[in-house]
């Protein structure tokens, strides 16, 4: 499965155009679809479109993988993952504000 290295592979920025379904996320992250649904129910993932089926933005890929890593490596339950993600985001937000302060 090695490719010739002289010919450059082209790929798009995934986040810019991706609209993901539960099935897509399940396949990309190698996790059961029910687990994606649990993430939504716990507020870990946000659904941007509900009809005809659930849709997520491309950013959900990174978030799902992060949630799965936290769950597996830190042996967190769903509520713990949700809390950790919120705190990580708040930390990032505060760091950005610190930079932007006059």
């Amino acid at each position: 499965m090695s490719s010739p290295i002289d010919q450059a592979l082209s790929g798009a920025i995934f986040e810019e155009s991706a609209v993901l379904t539960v099935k897509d996320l399940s396949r990309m992250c190698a996790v059961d679809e029910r687990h994606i649904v649990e993430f939504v129910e716990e507020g870990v993932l946000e659904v941007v479109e509900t009809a005809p089926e659930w849709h997520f933005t491309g950013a959900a890929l990174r978030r799902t993988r992060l949630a799965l890593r936290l769950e597996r490596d830190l042996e967190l339950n769903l509520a713990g993952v949700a809390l950790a993600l919120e705190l990580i985001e708040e930390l990032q937000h505060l760091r950005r504000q610190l930079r932007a302060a006059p």
Partner: protein
Amino acid sequence: MEYKDYYKIMGVARDATEAQIKQAYRKLARKYHPDVSKEKDAEARFKEVGEAYEVLKSPDKRAAYDQLGQGHPGQDFRPPPDWGSGFEFSGAGSGDPSYSDFFESLFGAQGRAGAGNRRGAFHPGRGEDHHAKVLLDLDATLRGGARQLTLRMPEIDAEGRLVSKERVLNVQVPKGILPGQHIRLAGQGARPPGEGAPGDLFIEVDFQPHPLYKIEGRDLYLELPVAPWEAALGATVKSPTPTGTVDLKIPAGSHAGSKLRLKGRGIPASPPGDFYVVLQIALPPATDAKAKDAYAAFAASQPFNPRASLGV
């Protein structure tokens, strides 16, 4: 190969209970998890801790490991010839292929049994998607262009073992990609066992520190030194930017830490980021008599107490 003292890595006694081992792991995992840790060597430490826990949490593996006796860290190690007899290892743990040679020599084949069974199960008939993370130079996103990337990919070898393989790809980096975003390479993931389309390869992008610019999301920050009179009186000075040198107008009355924003001159994403110039006041050295006289003359002409706000 180096002997690994898993008890020492976990900071527990050799007769620690399962509960104590679990507790130690959770504490260390929280401390060194690369997604949450600020420690410098977090990733390496986290892998080491994960490997130690993988062995000590499993009664079978722990018993087998204990049977080796207490080696000396750093000592050259070879597993005994009858190693592994009588023990049956199962469970693939986290599926992380980056365990040490020491772990692989002890538990390699059996310890990973079952790791391959999970693969592809979430979309029958299609190969699994692969994920990798790379550090690019900032120029790659500012201008776009081909980069040679070396990825470490998990692969199932002929004996069904999960191994880590090096893979070199020449990839056209899309202009304007932001840290944390992915390049998707269709069909570059795993091939399914039978017929069917291969999966995709997702490459998560981050950037190496740049000598001039700090990267904050889509924005770039530059610390620009200016002379005290340039800040006080205002001036037009040269400043580097990602798209070349520009003439920058410093408003009169600027001070250290003043921010100037060049809209749309950050990372060329959509929408593009901004470029911030943060002023630093550089003091001219008072090394010769002329400079000393100038400082003294200025001091004599101005009643100025820089510590007035401190009440002294």
